[in-house]
């Protein structure tokens, strides 16, 4: 039997597994070696695989991403950690400007397999850069896969898939649920599919679509709504680019109603893309407008205000009720 582990332990397990399976996998980042990462995601890996496989870099994010691109070009698979997503913007130089478009630019002759991991999102009551959800900035980029796990098992399987994937992958780890719960995860080396949503709960009345840390709020809402006789289907998007619209559309076709839940600010976010695509392809199946429960269009506020900023299960329940009452 496998042990119950947290999400951050599952990340560590997947990294170790990938490194033992493929000696071309090299980890790099700030404080990931000796220190095991500020969130402990790479703990013990340097001791196990040595300092040629786990590299503590200087403090220089543009270069970390540049290294990953160059390593990919010469046959290594870099799995780079960006300490917090708030420090990721300098990497866009390489990730957006080069990595994401190399396949297209060379008509498929070259690709740029690399993984950029970063803890993201709210939950530790830290300010701004340390709590934001800016996944939409990256999900907008053709050629860049954006993957977000919502449980230890999915973190394990999706990270293995990301490391296996011949495309560049941004792997965002919701720090709020790094240690929130434990789940048995078998270290079997089996990746989960990228590009597919996970239907976590089947239901007939309404489809709830979410990802990352908001999945637990969404599932809690579904539980409480079930007590009232409302049957919710809950979908974990997991891969935000490219989107598995077929799964979402099939669900909405069945239920006729949809609420999308995410913690990023509402405007221009991935929820907007999902809602627009579902409307384009499934307008006649919808019995109510698609609702969005999201963060506010403001800078992530510090501390006490974070609880007000973050969507919670009560917000989801309100949105579900309104959607059900629409007609």
């Amino acid at each position, binding site marked *: 039997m496998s042990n119950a582990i947290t999400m951050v332990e599952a990340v560590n397990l997947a990294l170790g597994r990938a490194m033992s399976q493929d000696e071309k996998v090299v980890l790099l980042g700030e404080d990931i070696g000796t220190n095991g990462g500020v969130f402990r995601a790479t703990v013990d890996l340097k001791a196990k695989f040595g300092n040629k496989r786990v590299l503590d870099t200087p403090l220089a994010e543009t270069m970390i991403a540049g290294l990953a691109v160059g390593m990919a070009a010469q046959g290594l698979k870099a799995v780079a950690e960006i300490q917090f997503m708030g420090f990721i913007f300098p990497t866009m130089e390489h990730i957006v400007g080069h990595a994401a478009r190399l396949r297209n630019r060379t008509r498929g002759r070259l690709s740029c397999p690399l993984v950029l991991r970063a803890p993201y999102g709210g939950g530790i009551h830290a*300010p*701004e850069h340390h709590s934001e959800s800016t996944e939409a900035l990256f999900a907008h980029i053709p050629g860049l896969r954006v993957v977000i796990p919502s449980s230890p098992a999915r973190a394990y399987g999706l990270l293995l898939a990301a490391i296996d994937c011949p495309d560049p992958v941004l792997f965002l780890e919701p720090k709020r649920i790094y240690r929130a719960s434990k789940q048995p995860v078998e270290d079997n080396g089996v990746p989960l599919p990228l590009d597919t949503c996970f239907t976590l709960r089947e239901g007939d009345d309404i489809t709830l679509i979410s990802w990352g840390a908001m999945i637990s709020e969404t599932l809690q809402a579904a539980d409480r709504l079930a007590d009232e006789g409302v049957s919710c289907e809950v979908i974990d998007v997991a891969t935000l680019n490219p989107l598995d619209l077929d799964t979402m559309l099939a669900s909405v076709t069945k239920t006729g109603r949809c609420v999308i839940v995410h913690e990023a600010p509402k405007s221009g976010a991935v929820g907007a893309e999902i809602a627009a695509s579902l409307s384009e392809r499934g307008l006649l199946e919808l019995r109510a407008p698609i609702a969005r429960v999201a963060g506010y269009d*403001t*800078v992530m506020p510090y501390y006490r205000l974070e609880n007000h900023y973050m969507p919670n299960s009560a917000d989801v329940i309100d949105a579900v009720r309104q959607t059900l009452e629409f007609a």
Partner: protein
Amino acid sequence: MKPSREQQLWMYEQMLVSRYFEESIEKIYMEGKSPAFNMANGPIPGEMHLSNGQEPCAVGVCAHLDADDVVTSTHRPHHVAIAKGVDLDRMTAEIFGKKTGLSGGRGGHMHIFDADVNFSCSGIIAQGMGPAVGAALSRQLQRKGGVAVAFLGEGAANQGAFHESLNLAAVWKLPVVFVIEDNAWGISVAKSASTAIERNDQRAAAYGMPGHFIPGNDPLAIFEVAGEAIARARRGEGPTLIEIETYRLAGHFMGDAEGYRPEGEKDALFAKDPIPKFRNHLKASIGWTDADDAELVARAHGLVDGAIAFARDSAYPEPEEALEKVFV
């Protein structure tokens, strides 16, 4: 340039305020975070980077600045903010996330902004540097006088922004001084593991500006070197790079187990604590007495205790306030 008696006492007092401030924040930060350390709990959640031991860098430099001069600081800003004259009550309230804070309690300890004294921070490593260069450019173009000082850690000196800033500041002879607080560590990464040269002042030559290294975490030496660099900037002769050997007596952030430090390093640093050293110097040089000291310590503590009481007594912001001031 030697500091006068008044300047020395000013520096010493700022160091006392700063140290007692950090010690107080340290205690309050731990409220609600034990037995299990969870960063999200307590009256001050999130990361907390304390500056214990690094006070000489702040006071030796800021002794030459007035409110009109510009300072950009880092994720470890308290000592510099205090020496620059940032409103202590409102800074403390900001750290507590209170409505009376400098940013209405929305920014916390890494985002201390006080326009009254031209003080700002960047929680993003090295990214206070470009704005400092820009502030200096603005003063130069508008012939307004004043200098800008960018504080940074030795870890930040390997960011592109460091090199880009030094280059341009030198090319345009801008009134800016770059001050590296070399505490030997960027979180867990030793300077020797991230930087191929021993001292960053050597890099100044590559950009065409004077570079100085100040050993020993010595406020008097810092005062002298910074004084000349700032005077040079005021004369329109361009930028200077200064690296100060300093000591981080705390962890990188609160909750840091510091497993990466070699055995005995912390004890050796505490033995070189700059505050008792400065006190002894004052006793030897200007006849400073224990009674004088007790009085100054009491004043420093009173100031800090007052700021903490102000912060504790202040209200939290209303949730709606988070939505204001995004656009005009």
